[in-house]
């Protein structure tokens, strides 16, 4: 049923009303088919569940990899070279972006793409891929990851929205070496230079800094729903606040010292070296760069539900979208792409 919806059309309100409708129908007797449980059990018995494996047959995969090495190598060489060509000669057809470039849109220099880390929310997977898209490393035992960042060469910090935890994982053993779990569906965590961890405890409505012992040494919890947080070089903290459609910078005392409003569903906000701020607007399918006055100086549009974006040292912008990660040059030309099921976080690490 859908009698006139209430005035609040926010996603969370629409979800709450849709959930209410489901419950009302269930109360009225419209539930699962009476035999559904038996059907599912019978279907599972006919096709018994397997233990989780990373490939139906690891031997088959190994054989495939060996046979494909030559092809992959060739494709890798071609991709590296054709990428640079595309960057220097952008295609005029159907560009996904309308960017009034803030800086001289000179072609991006040839870049070493290093390792790109991707959190794939759909597949419960964290991936590291090289410039050719080849998977170098993966982490399967991670659930609902919305943020991942490498720490040094041997650790990963992951934020598991589903499990309400932040974990530091040894990449070699895949073991958890540190965790913090007193959270409510967090979206982001960063390891700070002092060894503490800054966490956007999204549904705990706070940003917290915890030390290695798990002691909260700083927090900001003034009516926010933070989806992203970054500690800035000046000691302040940048927060993407979905509750009030804004990005704010708060100082150590918790005073808001900078704010830009009108940023609906901001999933990510990064302070750039030039002082501007890069904001990912998931709902609008765009990434915007705003200056200190809040003016949009660059915009990338036509994206598919972007959840994260990073400005790279070469001036390109790396975006995690549904089904893919793409890198765009300042003109909005796609210069690199990796298809996945549902990318929610991406970061690039120099090799």
């Amino acid at each position, binding site marked *: *049923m859908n*009698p*006139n*919806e*209430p005035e609040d059309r*926010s*996603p*969370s309100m629409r*979800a*709450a*009303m*849709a*959930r*209410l*409708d*489901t*419950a*009302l*129908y*269930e*109360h*009225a*007797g*419209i*539930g*699962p*088919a009476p035999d*559904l*449980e038996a*059907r*599912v*059990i019978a*279907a*599972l*018995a006919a*096709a018994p*569940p*397997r*233990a*989780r*494996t990373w490939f139906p047959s690891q031997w088959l995969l190994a054989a495939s990899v060996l046979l494909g090495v030559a092809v992959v190598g060739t494709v890798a060489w071609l991709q590296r070279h054709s990428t640079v060509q595309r960057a220097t000669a952008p295609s005029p057809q159907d560009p996904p972006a309308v960017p009034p470039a803030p800086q001289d849109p000179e072609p991006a220099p040839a870049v070493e793409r290093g390792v790109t880390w991707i959190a794939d*929310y*759909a597949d*419960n997977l964290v991936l590291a891929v090289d410039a050719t898209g080849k998977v170098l490393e993966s982490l399967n035992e991670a*659930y*609902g990851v919305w943020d991942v960042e490498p720490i040094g060469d041997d650790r990963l910090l992951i934020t598991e*929205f*589903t*499990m*309400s935890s932040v974990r530091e994982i040894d990449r070699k053993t895949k073991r958890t070496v540190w965790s913090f779990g007193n959270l409510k*569906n967090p979206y982001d965590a960063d390891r700070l230079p002092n060894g503490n961890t800054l966490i956007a405890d999204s*549904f705990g409505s706070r940003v917290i800094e915890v030390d290695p012992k798990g002691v909260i040494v700083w927090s900001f919890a003034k009516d926010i729903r933070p989806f992203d947080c970054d500690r800035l070089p000046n000691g302040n903290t940048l927060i993407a606040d979905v509750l009030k459609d804004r990005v704010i910078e708060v100082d150590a005392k918790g005073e808001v010292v900078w704010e830009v409003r009108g940023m609906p*569903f901001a999933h990510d906000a990064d302070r750039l070296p030039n002082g501007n701020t890069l904001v990912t607007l*998931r*709902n609008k399918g765009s990434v915007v760069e705003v200056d200190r006055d809040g003016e949009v100086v660059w915009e990338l549009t036509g994206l598919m*539900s972007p959840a994260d974006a990073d400005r790279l040292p070469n001036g390109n912008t790396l975006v995690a979208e*549904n*089904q893919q990660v793409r890198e765009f040059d300042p003109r909005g030309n796609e210069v690199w792409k990796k298809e996945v*099921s*549902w990318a929610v976080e991406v970061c690039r690490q120099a090799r």
Partner: protein
Amino acid sequence: MTPQATPPTVRIPAPEPATAVEELVQRHLRDVWRYLRTLGARPEHADDLAQEAFLVALRRGAAELAPAATAAFLRRTARFLFLHHLRDRHRDAAFLDAVDELFAREEANGGGDPQLDRLRHCLAALPPRAREAVELWYGVDADDETRRDHLAARFGLKPHGLKSLLQRVRRQLRDCMEKEPT
């Protein structure tokens, strides 16, 4: 005199203990189905997709996880099957995310059954006319406008008037359910 027959012994077979898979289905199936309905699946479609979600998710090891992770895995699988069926993986992602978040919180608070109990408490607190209207509305075929028009007439309202009444009642119910203790 015929010898008295010994009454036959009827042994009622004890129910076999549920297997791990059965327990898992019993624990999660209804909530996966509710999740699909909340995303927008019709009831019979939710049946099919829920079944498929279990097949896919358990094949990928969902049964080996902690219950909350299993539930999340099943929902995510169900969501993708739903969007795949629609051939529209990008449909209103913000709404879909909000539904995800809502069910993750619901799971942490005991799943959908306590939610249904809360709804029943809240319905019981409504004025009789409002309660009857909402229960009858959701009980009739959603596609049958004629029947819903008849329902409006029964309350002495025009169809639009009944919808306005229901809109108010839904808001009341939502507010009540947020306040109702778990």
